[in-house]
């Protein structure tokens, strides 16, 4: 591998980096196939841990997502799981959200006071990441714990009910999803989704729950519409970042190398694993990811001069962060793969049975 640096941004890609990024892609693929969205929540911090600057990691991730979403959206579209009307509306605001995110990112990067090239942006990404995903995974866990105790387990509909009562006109009827939602609510959700997608590359994680919890639409349509949305958002984000020269195409290809294999295995897993386990594994993985990113925050704070401690400690924080991240992704993927393999081998043994034959 040639040894070079471009514009102080593109890192040298040597074999350890290759292996790490491909593995990240694979794990991200398995997770996103299994969970139905995301995967980036693992790949973004993973790449940052592998030494890729945050903004490059996000940019490459979003570019990677865009191609992947195109394939997924095409399939969902064939099954009729895409509400185009909803998608178009959310798209408009999501595009604005992404531009906003990219702009803020550049602003934050510029703020870095010496030390590191991108500590400001990194800190900002990490904080948003920790806050948002902690909320997501905790509410998911709460849902599961509730469903254990309670027979009435289901996505909480408080928000849907509340908005239904409000009836903020104009209400729009989305035919495929079969819901009536206020235009304003759609626009706000679109903006938030776009902004988060642009910032931490995990729009799907916000978009899908938003559609299920806020709009009250069926989860399959939510996933399909999200993917449809994601291909354009991904494209828009990719173009934005690419224009700013942040997309490292090599990383994108390496991610694909792993993820496109993983995604099929993950999707296969959802067919053979129980719903509760799917959600449990998912929230567990996200939570550890969040911890991992939280551990890295002091490093950025020190680099920016907000925190004062011996620089030698950075290594410990970074190691801890790395260990946690890999622990979450690898253990999650292993669990999923165990399920997948067990089902794969079991499949051959299953026989339907003519059980009771009574005379007539």
């Amino acid at each position: 591998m040639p040894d070079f640096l471009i514009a102080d941004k593109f890192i040298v890609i040597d074999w350890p980096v290759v292996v790490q990024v491909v593995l990240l892609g694979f794990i991200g693929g398995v997770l996103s196939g299994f969970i139905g969205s995301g995967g980036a929540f693992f790949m973004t911090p993973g790449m940052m841990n592998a030494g890729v600057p945050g903004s490059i990691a996000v940019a490459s991730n979003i570019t990677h997502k865009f191609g992947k979403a195109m394939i997924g959206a095409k399939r969902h579209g064939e099954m009729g799981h895409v509400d185009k009307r909803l998608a178009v509306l959310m798209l408009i605001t999501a595009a604005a959200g992404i531009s906003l995110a990219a702009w803020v990112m550049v602003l934050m990067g510029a703020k870095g006071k010496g030390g590191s090239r991108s500590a400001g942006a990194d800190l900002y990404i990490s904080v948003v990441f920790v806050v948002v995903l902690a909320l997501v995974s905790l509410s998911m866990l709460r849902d599961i714990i509730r469903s254990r105790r309670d027979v009435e387990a289901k996505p909480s509909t408080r928000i849907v009910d509340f908005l239904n009562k409000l009836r903020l006109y104009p209400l729009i009827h989305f035919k495929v999803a079969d819901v009536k939602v206020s235009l304003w609510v759609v626009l706000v959700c679109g903006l938030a989704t776009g902004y988060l997608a642009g910032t931490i590359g995990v729009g799907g994680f916000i978009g899908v729950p938003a559609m299920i919890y806020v709009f009250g639409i069926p989860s399959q349509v939510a996933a399909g519409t999200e993917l449809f949305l994601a291909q354009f958002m991904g494209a828009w984000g990719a173009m934005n970042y690419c224009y700013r020269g942040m997309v490292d195409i090599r990383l994108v290809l390496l991610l694909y190398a792993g993820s496109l294999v993983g995604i099929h295995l993950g999707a296969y897993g959802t067919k053979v694993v129980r719903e509760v386990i799917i959600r449990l594994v998912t929230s567990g993985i996200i939570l550890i990811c969040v911890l991992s990113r939280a551990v890295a925050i002091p490093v950025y704070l020190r680099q920016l001069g907000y925190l004062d401690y011996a620089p030698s400690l950075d290594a410990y924080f970074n190691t801890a962060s790395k260990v946690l991240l890999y622990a979450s992704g690898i253990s999650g993927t292993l669990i999923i793969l165990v399920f997948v393999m067990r089902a794969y081998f079991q499949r051959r043994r299953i026989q339907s049975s003519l059980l009771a034959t009574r005379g007539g």
Partner: protein
Amino acid sequence: MQIVCISRGTLAGGRALAEKLAAKLGYDCLSREELTEAATRAGIPVGKLEMAVVRRRPLDERLALEKDRYQAFVTATLCERALKGSIVYHGRTGHLVLPGLQHVLRVRVIQDPERRVEMVMERLGLDRAKALRYLEQVDEDRQRWVRTLYGTDWNDPGQYDLVVNLSNLVVDNAAAGLVHMSRLPEFQVTPVVQRTLQDLLLAARCRLQLGSDQRTRDMDVRVTAQDGVVTVTYLPRDAQRQELLPAALEGVEGIASILCTMASTNVLWIQERFDPANPALDQLIDVAGKWNAAVEMLQLTGEEVEPERAAAEPSPPAPAPAADGGILDDAQAPASEDENLAAVRQRLIEAGRAGSVRRVPASSARQVLNALDRSAPYNLVVIGEVFCDKNHAAQTRLTAEMVGMLAENLRVPVVEQKDLKAQFLFSPGQWVRMLVLGLLAATMFLLVFTHQLPVGEFLVKPGTSNRILAVLAVVAFVPAFAFCYGTFTRLLLRLLRFE
């Protein structure tokens, strides 16, 4: 034995019409309210389902099971009543609860909107604004109800034989008109219909039994019956508990035999003649094996009743598969066809892929569609030999039309049997495709990594035109690579049977 189903909306006079019609015909009259009350008393929380619709929340796993139980209850009650004597049923979805029965007279009653508002204001004592809002919400809820339970659009007039508009028509006269209509041959009961009713009843009773048995009540199962052979399809996660199913069904009368099949997915196979020698059978078993799917067979038996004939003697019953329930006495099946179907089924059983078998008297795509249970989760529909009595060109055209229509309405992939191999199994063409795309992807990959420096410089080169060029290049390159490599991996994993 005759069944008239009236689908009505709030205060539109549908109830009055149904009662009048029942009186004129001398039939029993059964309302949705009576039915849901009986269901509630039988321990099915119908009110919870209703409130889930009012609250606009999707059904969770448990409520979805209650929904199945409720539907089974409705089907069982209607079939029971219909087997005893003719009935007029009126409710929201009377026309949908007995899918696959062609002789049901399905009527929708509508009313002038202004009149409805007045009636709501009068009966509920609401002011105009509240009445309007009430109607708007109730109509919305009902549509949602129909969609949640039956997956169709309530307002699609294609689901009814007749729409009666009471804006201009007096209830009494409307009832008189319906009396005439109900005498038409299309709506008379034949022995085939009667057997279908018995099968529906049996399946519904089994579903209810499984739903009320402590051991099996939380299992998500689908029950069908054909000539006393009960097929229970369960999900892979319940594989360990499948031996409980026949035990739970111990007390149900009329079961000739029980077939338990595991399926996470279902393949529907439609054709007129099933032939065990057809290579498509092996292909289908292969596909079903990969998807862990059960194959449900739907045999089209052509036009069941010709109107002239129905008025006179009942037609001879359609062929039945080799099952030996006492209730099959009147089945005198032509042996050849029967054996073939039974042989195909036997093969599927051996492969562990047998779903239920159904015969429907249908000779057009529309009729097939009407006969299908829209809420059943099919993942693939395979259309085999249909329209066999037509000449080749007409057959090709009609088959293609059927594919299109089913695909549009069921929203699942629909393929013709001959395309099965190309689309879902590994054909030589796919080998080539896989290798070519794999090579292409590898080339792109290598090119980027052997030219890292120029590629990197290209990506960050300043200047607006350079930037735009870089953007365009990335936006074109990334999906192309994703497509090549993605298709390659998908095919590779399909080859390895991860699907």
